[in-house]
Every structure is written in structure tokens, then in C-alpha cells.
């Protein structure tokens, strides 16, 4: 058992159990906090995959911004401090069944591909993923267009969110 594998298993356990608690827990604050844990686990995974930048971005953006945003939203929409009543719909078993079926299907599909068990090759020396990512994101031959478009998207989202959530002083 290689240390990488052990780390991987621990990460996977963290992610999955946190995710499960996200969708199961009654208390929404708890759910948001469990989400934070899950996201943290994903960040570790990114680091394991040599996507250093993404690991950091994951922590900063997802946990630092989005999860906090969730917490704010939860707090703003509570009628009272405690959540009452069941948090699942009555027919929750249907989605569970469906989820399991889809999982089974996906696993089957994964293993139906030949060569899916391969291990990663080493990164060639002299290739810096971070630098390459930076270049790719701004070079015209690269992904500058999606980059710019996503910035416009963020702008639109910003304006939209403000507009939707603002209350007019009547």
C-alpha cells in the first residue's frame, strides 16, 4: 500500500461521508458545515493530482466564498432557529433508488472502458502546470475566450443577483 493510496482512501472517506451528511442532516447549518468538510477533502484530492493552483482556488473560492454565502443565505431564510419537521420529501426512496441505479450504471460504464486502470505517468521535467495554466488562460491560441466570457458571466451574475435580491425603498 503506497502512501498515496492511503491518503486517497482517507480523502475519499472524508468526502463521501461529508457529502452524505450534507444531504442527510436535518440542521441546515450543519449541512453547510459538512459541505465545507467535503470541499476541503476535494481540495486535498486536487493537490494529490498535482493541480496545486486548483487546490488553493478550491479552498479560497469554494469554501471561502460559496460556503460562507450558503451560511448567510441559510441564516437569512430561517423562520426560527430550529428546523422543524422532516427535511426529506416523503418519497425520498425513489431518488435513493435512482441514485443507486445511476451509480451502478456509471461504474459499469467506467469499467467497460479498456485501459481505465492505468496509473498516471510522471509529469515531464521542465513542465510547470501552474505556468502553463496561466499561459493557457490568457493566450489567444489558448483559452482566453472562455476566460473572458466567464468574466462577463460573473458580471452578469453579479448584476442579476443584486437586482433580484434588492428591496426597493417604497
Amino acid at each position, binding site marked *: 500500500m503506497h502512501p498515496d493510496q492511503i491518503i486517497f482512501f482517507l480523502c475519499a472517506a472524508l468526502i463521501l461521508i461529508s457529502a452524505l451528511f450534507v*444531504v442527510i442532516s436535518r440542521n441546515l447549518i450543519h449541512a453547510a458545515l459538512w459541505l465545507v468538510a467535503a470541499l476541503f477533502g476535494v481540495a486535498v484530492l486536487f493537490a494529490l493530482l498535482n493541480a496545486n493552483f486548483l487546490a488553493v482556488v478550491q479552498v479560497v473560492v469554494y469554501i471561502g466564498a460559496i460556503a460562507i454565502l450558503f451560511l448567510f443565505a441559510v441564516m437569512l431564510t430561517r423562520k426560527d432557529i430550529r428546523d422543524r419537521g422532516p427535511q426529506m420529501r416523503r418519497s425520498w426512496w425513489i431518488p435513493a433508488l435512482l441514485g443507486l441505479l445511476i451509480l451502478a450504471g456509471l461504474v459499469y460504464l467506467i469499467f467497460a472502458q479498456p485501459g481505465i486502470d492505468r496509473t498516471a505517468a510522471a509529469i515531464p521535467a521542465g513542465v510547470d502546470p501552474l505556468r502553463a495554466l496561466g499561459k493557457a488562460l490568457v493566450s489567444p491560441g489558448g483559452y482566453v475566450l472562455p476566460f473572458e466570457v466567464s468574466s462577463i458571466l460573473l458580471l452578469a451574475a453579479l448584476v442579476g443577483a443584486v437586482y*433580484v435580491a434588492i428591496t426597493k425603498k417604497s
Partner: protein
Amino acid sequence: MHIPLSWYLILAAALFCIGLFGVMSRKNAIAILLGIELMLNAVNINLVAFWRYLDPTKMAGQAFAVIVFAVAAAEVAVGLALIISVYRRRNTIIADEIDLMKW
């Protein structure tokens, strides 16, 4: 390095299904959005795993993942703004109760 690709993929699939389960079965609208976040993260894991295992010199995978981040952020912002706005008007965030656009 010693981890087969399939492990990552199975992990992403499982995360995705859990997120799907959450989306389909939670009452609270914000909880639904949490499920959606899980699904997006599963996608990101998939993308980065494929980037690393197939061709680390090409940046498509990571770039795509960056874009996904941005989109997820935008979507959460707008979605929560909508939910807050709905809560202000209808005083509820239970998805089943927001059903005006029906027959």
C-alpha cells in the same frame, strides 16, 4: 502515481450520485443548492483526474475546471439571491410550496 484512474472516477461518480440524491429529495431549496454544489465538485474531480492521467501538458482539463469554478460561483450567487427574494415574498423556502407555475 499508483492510484488507478478508475478510483478517481468511481469517487466522482459516487459524489455525483449523492449530490443527485440530495437534489431530488431535500425539501429546503438551499439544501437543493448544496446538492448541486456537490455535483459540480464531482465534475471537477473528473476533469482534473482526466487532465492528470491523459495528458498533463495540455491545459484543457484545468482550464475547464477553472471555468467550472467561475460558473458555480455565479450560479450559487444568483440562485441564493433568487431564494432570498422568493423567501421575502412568499415566506417559505420549501421547494414544494413554490409551485405557482403550475396548471
